[in-house]
């Protein structure tokens, strides 16, 4: 017991005396969360747009004022002719142009259809899609108002309703994703690197020759990173609730419980990696390429799993982060209880036990 305690102290010495790693360990989650939560977001506010009103009648004025009043758009410039549109796009001042056809009001009230052209700068296709959606929504909104006043019997209504995330907040996808990624990064990569470092330095050999039990060596490696992971989870959750405005709908205890399972899974993966390789660089590359990439690509964090080709959907099942992210979303956003996530929890638990068994087996082989 005392040996273990001494060794944990030693591990913390290693961590605290390496300022750069320290900074990465504790700062990375914050930076990542803020970047993904604020900077990289599908929300676009105060986008500069141009208006070309070829009709200049009452209706178009009303629609324009709706654009003006929207948070999403600032009318940067009012154009006079079609020729000016391209120039404005090229200058980069605007991202969207709204063009009203001539005789707009007349067309709308007499032939029941009038045209508005939305021209978007599609150099960034995602942003363009978002902007067009926002603009369509504003126009749709106006049309709804108009129809209700006139009590027309047939109205075309497009209803958009965003379940769980009505404001389409970026945090709702980035928080579970960042948790899945950061915990894996810290627990898996740092654990594997710190074990492999002892091999590289030759101290592992000294420890194996000593009466120190190998499992104590490993345990003392794992515990500090478990603690740091818990600190990180706390930071992430505090940030997401208080800064990003993403409340925890479900039980916080349940959320912490599934997170601990996930951390165990990540730690055991780290030990497993450390048994495969003898170099810190290799351990880092395996952790980064072998784990981070699948987390980003296949966990459903960035790309929806349902849209993937079948083969990738199948592969995505072996990515632990996928199950963890599903559970975090269920508990945090939908507010589900254990009955809603038990399947995922069992899968993750099974993976964890599998990794632990394999790494214990492999570690013994290495000692022989």
């Amino acid at each position, binding site marked *: 017991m005392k*040996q273990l305690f001494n060794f944990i102290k030693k591990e913390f*010495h290693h961590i605290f005396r390496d300022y750069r790693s320290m900074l990465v360990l504790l700062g990375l989650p914050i930076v990542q969360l803020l970047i993904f939560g604020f900077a990289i977001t599908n929300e676009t506010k105060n986008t500069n747009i141009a208006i070309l009103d070829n009709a200049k009648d009452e209706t178009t004025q009303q629609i324009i004022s709706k654009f003006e009043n929207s948070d999403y758009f600032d009318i940067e410039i009012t154009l006079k002719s079609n020729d000016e549109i391209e120039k404005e796009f090229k200058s980069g001042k605007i991202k969207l142009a709204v063009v009203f056809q001539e005789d707009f009001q007349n067309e709308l009230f007499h032939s029941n259809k009038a045209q508005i052209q939305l021209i978007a700068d599609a150099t960034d296709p995602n942003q363009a899609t978002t902007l067009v959606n926002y603009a369509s929504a504003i126009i749709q909104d106006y049309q709804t108002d108009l129809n209700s006043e006139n009590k027309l019997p047939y109205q075309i209504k497009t209803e958009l309703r965003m379940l769980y995330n009505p404001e389409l907040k970026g945090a709702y996808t980035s928080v579970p994703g960042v948790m899945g990624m950061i915990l894996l990064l810290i627990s898996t990569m740092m654990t594997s690197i710190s074990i492999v470092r002892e091999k590289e330095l*030759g101290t592992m*050999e000294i420890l194996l020759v*000593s*009466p120190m039990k190998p499992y104590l060596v490993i345990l003392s490696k794992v515990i500090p990173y478990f603690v740091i992971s818990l600190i990180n989870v706390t930071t992430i959750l505090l940030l997401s609730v208080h800064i990003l405005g993403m409340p925890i709908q479900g039980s916080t205890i349940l959320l912490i419980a599934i997170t601990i399972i996930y951390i165990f899974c990540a730690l055991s993966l780290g030990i497993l990696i450390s048994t495969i390789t003898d170099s810190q660089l290799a351990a880092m590359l395996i952790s980064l390429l072998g784990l981070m990439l699948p987390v980003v690509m296949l966990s459903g964090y960035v790309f929806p799993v349902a849209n993937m080709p079948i083969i990738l959907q199948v592969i995505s099942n072996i990515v632990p982060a996928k199950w963890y992210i599903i559970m975090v979303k269920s508990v945090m956003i939908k507010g589900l209880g254990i009955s809603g996530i038990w399947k995922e929890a069992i899968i993750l638990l099974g993976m964890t036990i599998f990794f632990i068994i394999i790494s214990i087996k492999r570690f013994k082989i290495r000692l022989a």
Partner: protein
Amino acid sequence: MQKEIVIKTDKLTKRFSDFVAVNEITFEVYQGEIFGFLGANGAGKTTAMKMLIGISKPTSGKAAIAGYDIDKNTEEIKKSIGYMSQKFSLYEDLTVKENITLFGGIYGLNDSDIKIKSEALIQKLGLQNEADKLVASLPLGWKQKLAFSIAIFHSPKIVFLDEPTGGVDPITRRQFWDMIYEAAHNGITVFVTTHYMDEAEYCDRVSIMVDGVIEALDSPSQLKQNYNAQSMDEVFLMLARGAKRGD
């Protein structure tokens, strides 16, 4: 004089698939002796040593360390030996004191013993001013001496040194050997591998390994006489010339 046998091997062999790294070596080492384990690179001495200290399993053959069988009593053996590896193997980001305390604790010494012994050790090595500095800041020679001191900190019966003086200047090497003599004088058996033939002269007895086999084993003076050589260097060259492997 009745000499106690502390290392005894019987046809100890290590095979890596087709390659026989260590081929049926049989020898004995006596208590308090400085035993030089020589051989060219690739001769198999590190592999042999790894089997003796219990981090590599022999393919066949037997060995006993301090009277304990290396197959069955590994835990007992671990407590009776000290080991200093080829690579410098203290924690560079821990202080001198922290390293001593850590390794003292690993070998089951209690806190008060560690405190008393580590102060004495720091005094002896003249590291009073460096005791709370990181090991990384020490010159290599001091690190080696510290590593050796830590390897025998728990007063083991046998200490295994794997090329302990690599990359150290001649003066420090001499001082290092003084420490080895002192340890041997205190009854610790020293099992040392080395490349330096002048160091071989300091040993009580040496064995010379060629291609996984012990070709010669005797005191340096006897070996020189047997091979009609002026120095251990000549003896070594004569034996190692026949080697088929190595780098």
